[in-house]
């Protein structure tokens, strides 16, 4: 069984690699298979980890019939694809969207205000000054209510340089990321073949 598994895994890996040559049936087979298998894999997990404890046990074992209300709303999700009753699905969606309110103040807090605080720390070293300069010039660049002319324009040009260096950093890291994935696969192939030979 282990050997069969390995053969399948190697075959599927090579099937995907064959895309490098060109799009072909083996690639497409693997491609379509993964979609089905992934969803199929999730189904029993959802049943076991969510449906059973949160729905079945609550109603049939604990007899907490108040939970029939969320079950009702949950079922309304399924009307999403109905032509005439599609609007019913808006109710559960609306309920799940409610938490967006928490997102407003919390994102404002963490993504904006905390960063603003960090941007105004005392300029004790030259590096902190450079960071300060970079932050405000990049913000100038993304300020659309004033044309980039004169001194202001020059100032926002500095922002571009900062951004380019920043993107360069992302670029360098991304190269590493892509190669890492390939390393992982080649390592797998090498190990498997080694195992077969042994």
């Amino acid at each position: 069984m282990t050997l069969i598994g390995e053969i399948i895994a190697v075959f599927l890996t090579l099937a995907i690699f064959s895309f490098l040559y060109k799009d072909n049936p083996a690639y497409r087979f693997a491609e379509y298979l993964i979609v089905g298998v992934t969803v199929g894999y999730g189904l029993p997990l959802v049943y076991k980890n969510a449906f059973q404890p949160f729905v079945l046990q609550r109603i049939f074992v604990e007899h907490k019939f108040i939970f029939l209300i969320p079950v009702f709303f949950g079922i309304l999700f399924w009307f999403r694809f109905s032509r005439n009753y599609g609007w019913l699905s808006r109710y559960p969606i609306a309920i799940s969207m409610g938490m967006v309110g928490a997102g407003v103040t919390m994102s404002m807090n963490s993504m904006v205000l905390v960063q603003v605080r960090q941007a105004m720390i005392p300029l004790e070293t030259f590096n902190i000054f450079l960071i300060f300069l970079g932050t405000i010039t990049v913000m100038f660049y993304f300020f659309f209510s004033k044309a980039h002319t004169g001194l202001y324009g020059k100032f926002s040009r500095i922002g571009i340089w900062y951004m380019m260096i920043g993107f360069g950093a992302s670029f360098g890291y991304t190269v590493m990321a892509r190669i890492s994935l390939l390393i992982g696969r080649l390592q797998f192939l090498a190990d498997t073949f080694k195992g077969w030979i042994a």
Partner: protein
Amino acid sequence: MHKNRNKSWLSVILCLVALNFSFSLFAEKITVENAKIENFVVEDVPGDLGSGLLLKWKPLPNELKILEYRIYRGITPDSLFYSGSVMLNPVVGFAGEEISFLDSGFKPFVDKSSPGRLVVDSKVKPLDEKTFYFGTANNGYPRDLEVLAQANNKFSLIAQIEKGVYYSRYEEVTLDEQLFAGYPLGNVSVLARVRSGVEYFYSVVPLNETRKYLRPSEVVSGTPISDPLQKPARELYSNLIVDGSTPISLNFDWENATGSYSSQAAIYVFDDELEVTKSYFEATEENPYQGKEPFILSLDPQINEYGKFSQPIISENGAYFLKNEDSQLMIDLERIEDYQVVIQADNGQTLFLKDTPNSRYQSIQTASLTDLPQVPTFNVYDVPNDKGDTQIVVWEKPLVEITKTSFHEKLGKFLIVNYDYYDYQAETLKSFDLKLTLEGQEKPFYETDEFYLDNVIKLAVPDDYDNNTITAEIIIKTNNPDTEPYTLYQNLKFDKILKALIPSAIVKNNIALNSFNYEVYAKEGSPQYVTVAGKVVGKMNNYSDVISYERFLYESVIAFDPESGKVLVPGDIQVWYDGKTEKSLNLSKFASVSKEKIATEITTVEEEIAQITDPKHKERLENYQSSLLALQTELNNNISNRKWIGIVKNHRNNSLRQKSYKVFASNNRGLFTSYELPLNEDGSYQYFTPISNQFDYDKLAGLLASIIFAILVAVYVNLAKKGVDLYIRPIAGIQEIDNAIGRATEMGRPILFVPGMSSIGVVATLAALSILGKVAKKAAEYDTRILVPTRDFILMPIAQEIVKEAHIEAGRPDTFDKNSVFFITTDQFAYVAGVNGIMIREKTATNFYMGSYFAESLLMTETGNITGAIQIAGTDSVTQIPFFITTCDYTLIGEELYAASAYMSKEPMILGTLKAQDYFKFIILFFIIVGTILSTSKITFLLDFFPEK
């Protein structure tokens, strides 16, 4: 290297072959079919009061690839229920000689996830027909009271009941003429522990890696024996505290043996030889004790809890005495080291001070009053901005500690000093001065005022520095104007191995803070103090005590009662704890029973009042009595159980969450001081309840900013909708877009427009679509073909509509070709392959990539490069921007995409939001610049207004 590796492979193979061979020669091959568990034994766990059994067996050979050993347990040998398992990794196997499983402590027994009826575990093949194995993958006993009733009295059972259920879902059940509260089985989780004296039967069933069940083991039984582990105290210390030459007290400090079930009964102090002293404990009636009478100090449970006691020394006519009701002993200060101190446990076993493990402390030590730690005078604060489940005991002013240092040699030699600070809202650290002085020098070589607390200070190392010790002087200023700045010291000593300066302990008032620990005790629901925090290290200045709101309540299970169909638990309930009188009121869950009980309670209190003379105490008791009477009146109204439990719940919520504290500062060697808060004016103890706060002031900045931004967004989106002209600066990219369309026209080749990988609803896609409208219009004017492949089938008709509109606007509806906007596939890579095919086949002159993109962007732009097309991109996907910049001729970065689309299309939603963001950014910029100027000039209020996390 590589060669060696090959050889090791070879040797492994050889070994394996040899191993295989030897197996086949000498032993019958063990297979899945005939594998048998050997040496399976069930033993009592010694010294645990009979609460556990230990199962041991020999593991099956690793080549069977065992995944799991499932344990089945029963109270009869013929029906066994699944009760736990040992998991293994089948690939690696198990290396030891013996696998064990400890069946002790409360473990899940039956709960809502248990099967509804008795399930035979059909995968197990019993060794004989009489034995049955029950259970499912994770559960043993079923939710069937008939079956469970057999377990009554055979296990120690505890019911875990959710708060909501606890107060609402019980019924009166009478069993053997006693009244119990019965809960439905489905609503409680029952935990079980083995009981001493009951015989349990076990069997182990192995499972292999494909979850095939192997042959179960024999059924083996075992009985837990109630055998408490009783040991004398483990350590004992005694200190004579003197003030100059006057003895003040004799301190005792001891520690019980771990896991011991014995507590300490008394301490004896002898003025005698060790041998004589020993005979005191061996004396019988025939052979009585001959020496001097000792001083005997009997220890009550409260003192036992503390593990320390201070006996005052009384001076009479120039002589000093240890004195209490039972005995007295004169103390001769000269010979204090010859005195014998003995602690005796309640089971009679003793520990002599002479035998205490730490050799330095084997006689009474003399210590001066100044050696004692500072009295931990503390205050109790409620934690602000919280739900009301934490209060904090604070006994020390804010502290700063240098935690580590490291050298940094880049462009000069630097020392990086990391520090930590401990403070609390009631009094916080405002700033501190750090002065560093080299050993032997007078003047500090470095001084700084650390007003922005970022936990790190970087400084240049002086030229003459040669791994000397550095003294750090930290002068602390707090936000309390009444507190004078105070100084802490730390030595930084160079460590040769670590190559860093290692900070010593903090010294305050000449006392090293780490030489003491703090112990926090609290009373809650009963008048005795119990420990809440064992050893809080000396540098901590506070302890947060979490007093959770109750979520689960635990009751012992009396019985599973099939007759009533309920799980029975006791009917008693603690209604309240009165901190003023330190009295706890225990009544019943049932109104009728409570009515009887409260009457007796009232009489008892009445009797007590009659005896008391202290007016304050009397008043408190009378208050208590009146609240009891009020409760009685309510009960006398013949209220229902439901209403009654509502009243109980209220009282419990209010009174069971109050605590009173006591803190010890101690070196755990007999030097200790303690502090209790002064009594209230009416003579009662100070109790504290955490407060549930209504507003979190830490979030104030976030809230204000959100409101301002919300107003800006609402206003500008509405203005844009009304068509008010809102200025957007010209974006350089727009010119490029026009040029690129022109080029395609010149070359007579089509334009490709990729509207991103995301669906409609994503802002970038919307922006891309509005740019598409303008591009398509231009293209229609020039009569150039435009191709729009989509990845989303909902997007396709919308894009079609946009392109059609554009042709109509340009006055060329005839040139619109519906098939130029088409859906390829939802799959990321297949979509890219499709787009690449189009580029190559159609030889597109200009490619637009607008919208959001993922990892695939590179594949498209690269192909575009090869075909020699002009490429213009615009995306807010930050990770893809670098690739667009390096592979495309022009890239709209991030928000420029929105701006371009707003500029070209005036789409109100995008335009309005963009303007609102612009103005908000302006506010932010203003704050950043002003804030930086202020903070650099050491004014940090603006900085502090913004949240830190």
